[in-house]
């Protein structure tokens, strides 16, 4: 059953190769010039992001955070109004700075579940009360996540009493004052332990390994970085800071009490804006210290020459425009997001809607263009 003679099959091959060459050349004017070269550089990307953003951001956060720990120690040693006010001010600065590092939800940050110990909200007041009473509850289990970190401190120094005097009284004259002081110490220690694990890793070998793993399969630096970065924006900025309080996830019912820093009424918007700006700067590869742009995700997309097929617009431009739209939305909100949800929720919902558009661009268009995978299993591309 000979289906093709040798000579005819030869002709077919030669013919097809000829057609291929002609077709390919005529269609795209292929030649090995720079215009037809799209060189992406993951080594440069990873190096810029880790050396100029991630590590300096953690270092800066460490300064603010250590200051907060010192003020916390002063307050727990001598609970008085002056120390409370100082602690509160340092907590505020540290919490704002935290927004610039929370997005590093990959590598050590993910390994040590730093967010779980730093910023799960709304904080659970009854769990906090139980933990205070028990004195030695395990803080490493998920059930304890909502009873520690910045949100728990927010409650303990802003929400536990109606005035500074009342709050100080909780740590001086209340029957369980010592237990409360112990709990404050425990959760700040816990934060310190976890942070130092993460920070030490980034200062040490991890950064080197991170920069050298330039492949793009699941588990590679680029892949985990992009996935963590997007997840943070989707779940912890879009949903956590705006969508959940505004009721975007529960149409018809909103939850103003679920805003970030609920017990400090005027802080939520600042936190959201800080996180949003940090996310934007990360995309642009802006150095943490001096704002000069290095090799960025934006450059990477441009090197791939990803464009909208119909408008010819670069994807990176569409993304940056969407970031700008979100900034406009955030600038239209009042500092107190709790009252915004109650009085101006449509503005919150509009902000969420614009953030949602950015999630799509990042999660679908960007990862697809970069060929980022999420799974280790076999795939035949269908």
């Amino acid at each position: 059953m000979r289906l093709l003679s040798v000579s005819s099959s030869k002709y077919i091959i030669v013919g097809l190769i000829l057609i291929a060459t002609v077709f390919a050349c005529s269609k795209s004017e292929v030649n090995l010039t720079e215009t037809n070269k799209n060189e992406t550089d993951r080594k440069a990307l990873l190096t810029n992001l880790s050396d100029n953003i991630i590590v300096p951001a953690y270092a800066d956060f460490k300064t603010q955070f250590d200051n907060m720990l010192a003020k916390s120690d002063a307050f727990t040693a001598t609970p008085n109004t002056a120390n409370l006010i100082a602690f509160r001010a340092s907590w505020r600065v540290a919490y704002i700075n935290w927004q610039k590092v929370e997005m590093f939800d990959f590598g050590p940050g993910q390994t040590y579940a730093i967010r779980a110990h730093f910023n799960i909200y709304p904080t659970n007041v009854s769990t906090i009360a139980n933990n205070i009473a028990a004195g030695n509850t395990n803080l490493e289990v998920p059930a304890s996540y909502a009873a520690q970190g910045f949100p728990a401190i927010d409650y303990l120094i802003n929400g536990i009493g109606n005035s500074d005097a009342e709050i100080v009284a909780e740590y001086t004259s209340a029957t369980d004052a010592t237990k409360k002081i112990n709990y404050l110490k425990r959760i700040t220690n816990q934060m310190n332990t976890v942070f130092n694990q993460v920070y030490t890793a980034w200062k040490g070998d991890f950064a080197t390994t991170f920069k050298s793993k330039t492949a793009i399969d699941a588990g590679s630096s680029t892949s985990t970085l992009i996935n963590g970065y997007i997840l943070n924006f989707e779940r912890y900025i879009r949903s956590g800071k705006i969508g959940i309080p505004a009721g975007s996830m529960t149409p018809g019912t909103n939850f103003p009490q679920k805003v970030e820093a609920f017990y400090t009424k005027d802080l939520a918007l600042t936190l959201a804006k800080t996180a949003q700006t940090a996310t934007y700067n990360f995309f642009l590869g802006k150095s943490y210290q001096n704002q000069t742009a290095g090799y960025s995700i934006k450059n990477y997309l441009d090197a791939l020459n990803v464009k909208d097929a119909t408008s010819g617009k670069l994807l990176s431009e569409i993304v940056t425009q969407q970031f700008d739209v979100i900034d406009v939305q955030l600038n239209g909100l009042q500092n107190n997001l709790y009252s915004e949800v109650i009085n101006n929720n449509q503005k919150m919902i509009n902000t969420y809607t614009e953030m949602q558009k950015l999630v799509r661009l990042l999660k679908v268009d960007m990862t697809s263009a970069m060929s980022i995978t999420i799974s280790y299993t076999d795939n035949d591309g269908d």
Partner: protein
Amino acid sequence: MLTTYLKKSTHAAPLAIFRIATGCMLFLSIVRFWANGWIEELYIKPKYYFGFYGLEFIKPLGNYTYILFMVCAVAAILVAIGLWYKQAIIVLFLSFTYIELMDKSTYLNHYYFTSLVLFLLIFLPAHRYFSVDTYRNKSLNFSYIPKWNIDIIKFFVLMLYFYAGLAKLNSDWLLNALPLKIWLPARNDMPLIGWLFNYKITAYVFVWIGCIYDLTIGFLLWNNKTRLFAYLSVVIFHFVTAILFPIGMFPYIMIVTALIFFSAQFHQKIINLFNQWLKLPAGFIQNNQTFIYKPFALKFRIVILSVFFLVQMILPFRYMFYPQELFWTEEGYRFSWRVMLMEKAGYAQFTVKSSNGKAIVVNNLDFLTLLQEKMMSTQPDFILQYAHLLRDYYHSHGYPNPQVFADVYVSLNGRIGQTFINPKIDLAQEKESFKHKNWILPLNYEIKGF
């Protein structure tokens, strides 16, 4: 003419080697799957599974799933050595196919190919030469078998490649070098060849070679004069795909499968080596008996295999009965040898609304694994199944008469994404069928070709 063809016989060595190779490759695949922890990850950990339409009762068996894989592995060994072949090949086909049908999130064309090869092997006398069965029972031993036994396997392999090639005859593949233009630059850090992927022309060279390769390789393998060259290109082609893409065992399976095209003498030499190595008598592999089917057995096979090949030839074209773009709707996409054709990504958010005014936007990861979510976000049949799952779940969790709406955004082959599903349609009310799903919004550009 057909009767004379059916009477032609040929040496049994190629089929025996094919049996051994298939059994061994399957055994290795299962060991690899197990060792990677994928049984746990894909078939035990998930809370829900996406069954195939009409076969939803085929599900993982909890911890007994390990036993299923064990059965499959043992059957693969039995097939390879040819012990209790007739029973073993049926068990292997059934267990392997069952595994592949448990969750369509893990559907891969080469698993489908393997299932079909196993099905063919049920009807072939692959154990009648150089097997434990013939060693135990000399009366089973035949050096010659009907020629069509081997030809149908060759034909099936040829068909697989040819259809894979046909599927590449489309504007995205040939004119835009998609999706390779997206995938290759991601590999530009590879040693030696990585730099090539920074050039657009590389993707064009790859897609054209890939297409020509698929369309011609079956014929070139079949032809005596071109076979060696063709096999060499099989090895190179699949080796290149193996280092570039995460396609697992497929390249190796195809490299081994293509051996079937080589002459009987070639296979005989391998068997001679095995025979010496196992210190078996020379007579074991040299008897001049020719295996001939009893009339009924032959008729039975002709009917089954004719139906099989007819279905195989038609099935990849079923997409023509559906409106809209095939890559977009994926109606008629599976079981058609369409591989490496799309870079598709999606984002799906579901809102469940109850008749008592409650509403919730679902966190998909509460129900699905990352892989399942990824598959669900771009394929309408998954979206519908998932919507029904949500409907049933929320119905029994305080959401009476739930309505389910999907907000799905999908990007195909690197173009900016667009809305995939009509967001106003209550998917809780829609029923699965082989009919076109008219709630899929049309793709706003055209991909020409097959």
